[in-house]
Structure formats: structure tokens, C-alpha cells
């Protein structure tokens, strides 16, 4: 095999530094935690219960999300209607929707004094209970139905149109098509999607913090937080962190082996022409499914808007200060996530050979297995001897958020960088364009779109994150999601809704500004 002559320039050393930093953040923090762990004998019944609950709620959430997403995806795949593309876009929104905002919206709809309970009261039924398993699963399903729908829709649209034409020419009816075309597709894509959602639900923290808790509804992630925050039992937190990391790593590997659903999915704005779905029963079915999906996804957000709009103007100063801190954290986190992702991607592309490049990129995906609270706990243990962790709450939050956004950023940047090197790498080499010049004149201008998208995503994810900050922060250094959560636990629901609206607006704004910034005047 002929090798490239172009030598590895020092700029790619940054990639190595990034890889080392990620190792420190994932395995390093885990090691720090392990040095504090006390051994398996310390696992008490409550911890076993947390382990069981973690797996059980993740299983229920993933199963329900996928089951409910299939009919929605099917309806979107075979119906063209006004507002379809808006709905598909909306399905991408939960990705940047702050978890705590959605939780507040779900409480307003499904909570004890929410819309649903009130309506049940009219017909003499008792109110629903949202706290505990129900609530956790409900919120997870709310977040993951859109994700599952988009991924399954991709599967549907990946069935070549010719197959449907062939099926129509052979006189297949709807049941035949389901058997011959649709079931095989679902069998191929659903297991991977199930595992991804399972993993997301296992590491979910804010939902369980707000809606779970108590002996019956505590996950490992929440147990780590409680051991750390309330009992200040580092050994216990460490032990739980090790279990959580091991579990996540196993699930991540299974998810990766089973199938990796492809990325963010461009090109969902078409339908496949069908000849078997014009019967009125199927039409009514799709219509109903879509109406319920829209009601389920939109009502909580509309309620937040209605309740919050009035409260925004009377929000206490402390909320605005926390919003300011959150924006700073989000910007710092986005900058770091992009630097890490870009330097890793550069190194991977430069190394070229499949195996080494995959290895380098693998570092970026390591953070999927690391739960933010495990990383946070590890960083706390590392920082503790040198400084008061609450003094460093915001930088640590920005760093952990960046690590968590890294897989998504890498996924957006890596293919783009590969394309640039394929199309223009030789031209740049032949002109001696290297190092910083190559970055400034070739890579950055040609990567504006994916850079903007990835930065927007990282900023929005960090803006809405309620995870590691809950471990560290004292009242003076709270971010907006944490401040909002405090308002909720103090039952100041009006102010909480106002804060939620501000948080939602800022998250969407950050995403929009970056994503838009990458598109304006881009010559790509």
C-alpha cells in the first residue's frame, strides 16, 4: 500500500492532547472514583433497588418509545400533508429542549393539579400520580418518541421507491407490504434504536431528580447524587459510579454492535409514493395517530408558554443572574466541545488508516458510556485537595457538558472534514498549504455549516443541562436550570414557568444563532 508523504504537522498534536483530556475526563475520573470505592460488600439493599429500577425504567421507557413511535413514523412516511415538514422539524427539537423545562410542562399537563387530572375530576375519577415510575417513564417517552420517530422514519424512507412500485405492480395489499417490506425493515432498525434510547434513559438525571426519588424510584445516577450531596459518602458515590460506568459501557457496546442508526438524518422531507394506503380506515388511523402525537408533544410546551409568559416580567433578579451564568457556561462549553471535536477529527483524518482513525474517533464516543455525574464525582475527588469545588462549579460544568456534546459534535464534523480532505486535500498539499494557513484558508471556511450546527447543539445542550451543576453548586453559582429546579421544589410554580420560558428561549436562541451563523453566506 502506497503511503502518504505529507508529514504529520505539530497542529495535529492538539488532537493527541484532546484525546488525552477525554481519557482523563472519562477513565481518569473513573479511576479517581475507584480509589475511593469501598468494595462490593458495601452495596446495601437500597443500592440493589436503584440498580433494578435503573434497568426497569430504561426498559419500559425504551420499549414504549419505540412502540409508540412506529405508527407515527409510518404515518409520516406515507402521508403528505400541510405542516408535515414543520412536524418533522419539531421532532428534532427535544434534542435541544432543556429537560427540566419539559418536566415542568409535563407536570402542568399530567401532574396532580394538571390538565389531565382536572379533566378526570369532571367525570369523578381520581387524579393521576406523576411522581415515581409513571412520571419517569412518561418524561422519558416524551423525550424519546421524537428521536425514535425520526430514526424509524429514516428506515422507512430508506426502502427504495422501486420496491413499493414493484409491490404495487404485483398487486400487494397493505398486509402484504407490511410482511414483505416493512417488518424486515423494522426488525433491522428497531433493536439499535431501542438500545440507544435504553442508554439515554439509563444516564438520564434531571428527569429522575424531578420526578423520581424515594426508595421505589431512585436510579443509580440519582443515588450517586444523593450519596454525594446529602450523605457526603464519597466511597458510596464512587462504588455506584463504577457500577454505572460498567453498565453504560456494556449497553453502549451492545448498542454499537447491534446497529448504529445513522446520524441526524437529512432528507426526511419526502414521502414514498404508495398505492396500498388509500383506504379510509388507514387514513383515519394515520390521522388519529398524528393528532395524538402532536397533542402529546405540544401541549406541555404550550402550557409552559401560557403560564410563563406572564411571569417573565416579575422574575426575581437571581433568575436573571443565573441565566447570565448559564449563557457563559454554554458559550465556553460550545467552544471547548468544538475544539475537542475538531482536533480529534483532524487527527483521525490525518492518520488515514481505518483502524487508527477509528481508534482516535472512538475516544470521542467514550463519553457516551461516562455518565455526567460519574465524571463530576471524579472531578470533585480530583479537585478536592486543591480548591473548593463550589468555586469551580461553572468551569467544571462547562467542561463536563463539552465532553457530553462531543459525540454529537464529532458526528457532525468528522464526515465533513473527510469530504474536504478528499476533494481538496491534494490541491492544498500541492500548493504547500499546511498548518494554520490550511486551517484558516481551507478547513474553517468549508466547515462553516457543520461547525455552526455542532456549536449550536453543544451550546443548547449545555444551556439546558441540569446534571453535574447540581453536585457542585452553592446558591451563588447556580445555572438557570438549577435555579428553575429550586423554584419548582419551593412550589413557586409561576416563577418556575417564567424561568422555564427564559431557559427555553435562550436554548433555542443559542442554537439558532450558531446554526444560522454557519449558513449565512456559506459557499458550500
Amino acid at each position, binding site marked *: *500500500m*502506497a503511503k502518504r508523504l505529507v508529514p504529520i504537522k505539530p497542529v495535529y498534536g492538539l488532537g493527541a492532547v484532546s484525546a488525552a483530556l477525554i481519557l482523563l475526563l472519562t477513565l481518569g475520573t473513573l479511576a479517581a472514583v475507584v480509589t475511593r470505592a469501598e468494595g462490593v460488600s458495601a452495596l446495601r439493599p437500597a443500592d440493589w433497588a436503584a440498580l433494578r429500577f435503573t434497568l426497569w425504567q430504561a426498559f419500559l421507557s425504551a420499549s414504549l418509545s419505540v412502540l409508540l413511535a412506529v405508527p407515527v413514523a409510518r404515518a409520516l412516511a406515507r402521508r403528505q400533508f400541510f405542516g408535515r415538514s414543520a412536524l418533522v422539524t419539531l421532532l428534532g427539537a427535544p434534542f435541544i429542549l432543556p429537560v427540566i423545562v419539559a418536566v415542568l410542562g409535563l407536570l402542568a399537563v399530567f401532574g396532580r393539579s394538571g390538565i389531565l387530572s382536572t379533566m378526570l375530576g369532571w367525570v369523578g375519577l381520581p387524579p393521576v400520580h406523576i411522581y415515581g415510575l409513571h412520571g419517569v417513564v412518561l418524561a422519558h417517552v416524551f423525550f424519546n418518541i421524537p428521536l425514535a420517530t425520526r430514526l424509524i422514519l429514516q428506515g422507512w424512507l430508506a426502502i427504495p421507491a422501486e420496491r413499493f412500485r414493484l409491490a404495487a405492480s404485483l398487486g400487494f395489499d397493505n398486509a402484504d407490504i407490511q410482511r414483505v417490506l416493512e417488518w424486515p425493515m423494522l426488525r433491522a432498525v428497531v433493536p439499535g434504536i431501542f438500545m440507544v434510547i435504553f442508554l439515554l434513559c439509563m444516564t438520564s438525571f434531571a428527569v429522575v431528580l424531578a420526578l423520581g426519588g424515594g426508595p421505589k424510584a431512585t436510579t443509580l445516577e440519582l443515588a450517586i447524587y444523593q450519596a454525594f450531596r446529602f450523605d457526603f459518602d464519597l466511597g458510596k458515590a464512587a462504588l455506584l459510579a463504577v457500577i454505572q460506568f460498567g453498565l453504560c459501557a456494556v449497553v453502549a457496546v451492545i448498542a454499537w454492535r447491534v446497529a448504529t442508526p445513522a446520524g441526524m438524518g437529512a432528507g426526511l422531507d419526502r414521502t414514498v409514493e404508495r398505492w396500498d394506503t388509500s383506504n379510509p380506515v388507514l387514513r383515519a388511523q394515520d390521522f388519529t395517530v398524528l393528532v395524538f402525537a402532536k397533542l402529546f408533544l405540544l401541549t406541555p410546551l404550550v402550557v409552559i408558554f401560557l403560564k410563563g409568559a406572564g411571569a417573565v416580567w416579575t422574575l426575581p433578579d437571581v433568575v436573571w443572574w443565573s441565566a447570565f451564568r448559564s449563557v457563559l457556561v454554554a458559550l465556553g462549553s460550545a467552544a471547548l466541545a468544538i475544539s475537542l471535536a475538531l482536533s480529534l477529527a483532524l487527527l483521525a483524518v490525518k492518520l488515514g488508516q481505518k483502524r487508527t482513525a477509528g481508534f482516535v474517533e472512538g475516544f470521542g464516543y467514550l463519553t457516551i458510556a461516562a455518565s455526567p455525574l460519574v465524571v463530576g464525582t471524579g472531578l470533585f475527588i480530583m479537585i478536592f485537595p486543591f480548591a473548593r469545588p463550589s468555586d469551580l462549579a461553572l468551569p467544571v460544568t462547562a467542561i463536563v457538558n463539552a465532553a457530553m456534546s462531543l459525540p454529537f459534535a464529532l458526528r457532525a464534523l468528522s464526515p465533513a472534514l473527510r469530504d474536504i480532505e478528499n476533494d481538496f486535500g491534494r490541491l492544498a498539499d500541492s500548493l504547500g498549504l499546511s498548518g494554520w494557513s490550511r486551517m484558516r484558508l481551507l478547513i474553517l471556511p468549508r466547515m462553516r455549516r457543520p461547525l455552526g450546527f455542532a456549536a449550536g447543539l453543544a451550546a443548547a445542550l449545555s444551556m439546558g443541562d441540569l446534571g453535574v451543576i447540581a453536585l457542585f453548586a452553592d446558591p451563588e453559582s447556580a445555572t438557570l436550570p438549577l435555579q428553575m429546579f429550586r423554584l419548582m421544589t419551593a412550589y413557586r410554580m409561576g416563577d418556575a414557568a417564567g424561568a422555564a420560558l427564559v431557559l427555553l428561549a435562550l436554548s433555542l436562541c443559542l442554537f439558532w444563532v450558531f446554526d444560522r451563523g454557519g449558513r449565512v453566506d456559506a459557499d*458550500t
Partner: protein
Amino acid sequence: MLTLERLEIVQDDFCLTADLSVPTGARVAVIGPSGAGKSTLLAAIAGFLKPGSGKILWDGVDLADLPPGERPLSLLFQDNNLFPHLSAAENVGLGLRSDLRLSSSQKEAVSNTLERVGLKGFGNRKPAALSGGQIARVALARMILRQKPLVLLDEPFGALGPALKGEMLTLLADLLDETGATLLMVSHDPDDAVRISSQTILVAEGIAHPPIDTATLFANPPDALKRYLG
């Protein structure tokens, strides 16, 4: 003088050997069936592929340790010769300084060269706003400014219509008259070979044959060339 000394290029199960030299100032066509390794040969000379064995020399100096940007040659590809996000003037300016920090005299040189290739006033346009022929002219302008003694062309006019291609070959011939550079041009069109080059390298069946007089070659083609010409 370009010398390929017992050069052997190995790529997976493909192998090409060359043992030949091209005198300074010569204009040589490289022809042969597709997949024979014409572009691979140029890529090796340009420094994108490391040869399995043998040497590539320019005026007796081994090029092995020079990265592509430092070799005494300019290379034009089949496509993607310009960066689409940079203006015509910036694309040309890269030939002078790869970090594009040009002095005012260098900027003037850029606009003079653009004028020389018939693109006066087009400097601010980006490639998307240029025609195929104009894009080729910008690439030629950069080639002139780089002032490298060896020019490698990998079918850069392949996508142009016959009239436009003829125009480009004429412009190229004029430019080579001015600079005295040595030319190696890959083409799958025998007419190109006749038109611009006095000598031709035939690449076929794993061998890049030494250049011979183009007219002689076509008057009495060897079997491999006969099969290619059909």
C-alpha cells in the same frame, strides 16, 4: 530534466513501472487506456504516492524527501483545481504565498496574471460565478505565478467542449513558450497529444514507456496503442 529511475509504483494489486527521462523544455503527452496508471504516475511525481522502489529526480536531485508543496512542479487536476470559497484572485494568490498575506506588489502580479489569461476584472468572482473555461484560466494563471519548471496536467480540460479545449491548449502553449517550463500532460484524446506535444509517453499494461516522437508513434503504433485506439 525529469528522470524516473527504475520507478515502481505499487497500489494493492496494481503495479506500474517506469524507467525514462524527459528533457527540460519538452512537451510530452501521457496517453493510454483508462486504468492504466496515467494519473497514478503523475501523483507519484507530484509526491502524493510513495513509490515502492526507484527514484524520481529533477535535474539530478532526488525528490523523495520533498512534500508535494515543495517540489519543483505545478499540478492541475481533472477538477477541484480551485477552492470554491475563495475568489479567483485569492485562488491565484495562493500560488505566491500559501498563507495569502500578499504584499501590494504581489497583488498587482496577481491581477496582471489574471489579465494575461484574459480574466481582467474577474478577480473578485468566486468559482461558482465563473464558467468552466474561466475556471481553467484561473488555474493556469496560478500555474504561471508559481513559476515552477515542471508542469503536470491531469486532463484539466477534459470536461470542456472541443472548441473551448482547443482555446485552452493554445493558451497553454503560449504560456509554456513564455516560461519555458517542461510539460507532462495526461490525455485520453490522441488529438491533444498531436496538437501540443512533440513527444508521447505510452502507459499501458503496467509500463510507462519512454517518450518517443508523437508523429512516429501514431504513424506506427505498437500493439497496446493499437488496441487502445481501436
